[in-house]
């Protein structure tokens, strides 16, 4: 049980780090975009690659933070009936959800992006626009990173659910603690 709790803590910790990176990328996106706007309209200065930076910064941000958001239970749920389930009931649903819904979807994304990202790497694909970013293949690779982080978090959720089912609330990661005490907020 301790081992399981350790693995769960590790997974939640990893995604917490990526969540922090993603949050920082939001600020990058804000500042770079404001810079582009001012530079363009005030000084007539524009470069495609700077524009692509703020677009990519946000694109990467939401892909990286998705798993951490799942850890924090920030993804919307239809909670009409859920409130009436016991905590153990919710834990069972979480396991079913990860196995039946989340993991198959991630497998699909992996299958779909395998050649897409692979081909991009093979030619070290740059931006399709002249003067664009040189490393588009790295941005495309975020599809794979997203899948990996999500799959990891899915396993983390199963671990958490098992901890709940075994009654070991003391071992839960901190993202789950407050949620278990307080009811779900609308």
């Amino acid at each position: 049980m301790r081992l399981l709790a350790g693995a769960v803590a590790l997974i939640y910790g990893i995604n917490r780090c990526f969540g922090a990176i993603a949050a920082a990328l939001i600020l990058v996106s804000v500042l770079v975009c404001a810079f582009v706007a001012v530079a363009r309209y005030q000084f007539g200065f524009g470069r495609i690659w700077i524009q692509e930076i703020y677009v990519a910064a946000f694109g990467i941000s939401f892909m990286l933070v998705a798993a951490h958001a799942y850890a924090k239970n920030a993804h919307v749920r239809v909670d009409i009936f859920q409130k009436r389930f016991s905590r153990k009931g919710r834990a069972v649903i979480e396991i079913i959800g990860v196995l039946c819904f989340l993991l198959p979807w991630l497998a699909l994304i992996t299958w779909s992006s395998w050649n897409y990202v692979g081909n991009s790497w093979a030619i070290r694909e740059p931006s399709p626009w002249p003067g664009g970013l040189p490393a588009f293949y790295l941005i495309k690779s975020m599809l794979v990173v997203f899948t990996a982080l999500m799959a990891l978090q899915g396993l983390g959720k199963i671990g958490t659910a098992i901890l709940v089912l075994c009654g070991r609330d003391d071992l839960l990661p901190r993202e789950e603690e407050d949620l278990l005490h307080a009811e779900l907020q609308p």
Partner: protein
Amino acid sequence: MIDHLGEFMAVGLFFGICTALLMGYPVAFTLAGVSMMFASLGWILGIFDFTYFLAIAPRYFGTMMNEVLVAVPLFIFMGMILERSGIAEALLTTMGQLFGQLRGGLGYSVVLVGAILAASTGVVGATVVTMGLISLPAMLRANYDPKLASGTICASATLSQLIPPSTVIIFIADILQGVNQAAQNRMGNLAPDPVSVGDLFAGALLPGALLVGLYMLWMVFNAITKPESCPALIMTAEERASLGRRAILAMIFPLLLILGVLGSILAGIATATESASIGAVGAMIFAAMRGRLTFDVIRHAMVQTATTTSMIFIILLGASVFSLVFRGFGGEALVEDALSAMPGGMVGAMVVTMLVMFLLGFFLDTFEIIFIMLPIFGPPLIILGWDPIWIGVMIAINLQTSFLTPPFGFTLFYLRSIAPKSIETTEIWRGAIPYVGLQAAALAILFWQPSIATWLPEKIYRSAPVAATPTDGGGIEDEGFGGLFGDDADPFGNGASGEGDGGDAERDPFAPGGGLQ
């Protein structure tokens, strides 16, 4: 029987998802997971081609690199910073005192501040909480009817969903752009006018003002017929002193920001995304001037923005698996046939669409409804002859109502969580009902007079040159999707395209640039 197997699967998919969602697993993952189950079943039955799914990767990448949609996190960031800068508190206090001496005055101030906050911060949850903490106690102290007070607060807070820069509208615009392109191509117009975020913002502006006007009228009506439900505020000389100056100080920044951000978008000077980033930096400067720009505030805004937008975008990713499978089964053609066979023609089709969206609003989130419904219901409606901008604005008002509808309306929950215990939950619900009625009235007015939504965009954009189009990853997305599914839908779509020709004659009055050119 076999011919219709795909359509059965499409219907089954829709209801399967509705059922599975009730489990309470995150919507985004459930959408994708259930769609895949049906796809696998279809594949075994030999009616679904798995290679459709190869479109997923380029589509997701297109979403990542979509320049238009970057406006969403930027506006949310701006709202988060403004929320922490104490702008709402200052506005509510001074406006309340300014109008408070009138009968119903606190009500007017809530509606007005709701509109100003909608045009600047645009965060429904934050607005209703701030109003609930500041205005609700003030209204109750002044002996307002709790029903009227809570209803006004909830309704005013939902204005953020409609009044630009609303995040919902940005998504509606982005999806409508693709939908309109596809529909116009089907009708033989290969180079339709693009639908931009600016178009939709301009389109939502007057309907937003219409709603504010209706809310105000409702307050006036109450003040006249039931004066005891909203008495005037008795103020001390101390409170009255320098009120004018404080009111102007509280108003000036938000108004400048609104003017700058919306003005530059509507005037076509800057794209929505660029204006949003300037607005975000402006909000930070404003917060710094008020001494509220701490590291903690920035960090909170960053984390909240990242989480909120990721939540929305992941739903978009999940929903696109659904639309792919739904189309793969020929479900799109099914909806098209059903809509064009509606009694009442194009009006009937629109009414049905609005009803379905309203009902879904009872248990689904605004974004989910848009991502699921708009790509499927949009093309037939445009082919039947409705103007895309008008459709977008109607949908926005309709979904705004779902934030207000008892028992599951979001704002009602938010207000319940912070309202004093002395107010009954049923009082909050009953207070919201007249406003749901006002929403319905606004929809009816817009139905009767579509030019309220289409006049301003036409005025602004059909004369002025469109702002430079920046690089747009969305192109990748459209190719991947249209290429795969445009052809597939055709064998079923012949009935609807016939309807389209018939509908063309009707479309003139309110279809700017929609006709064949």
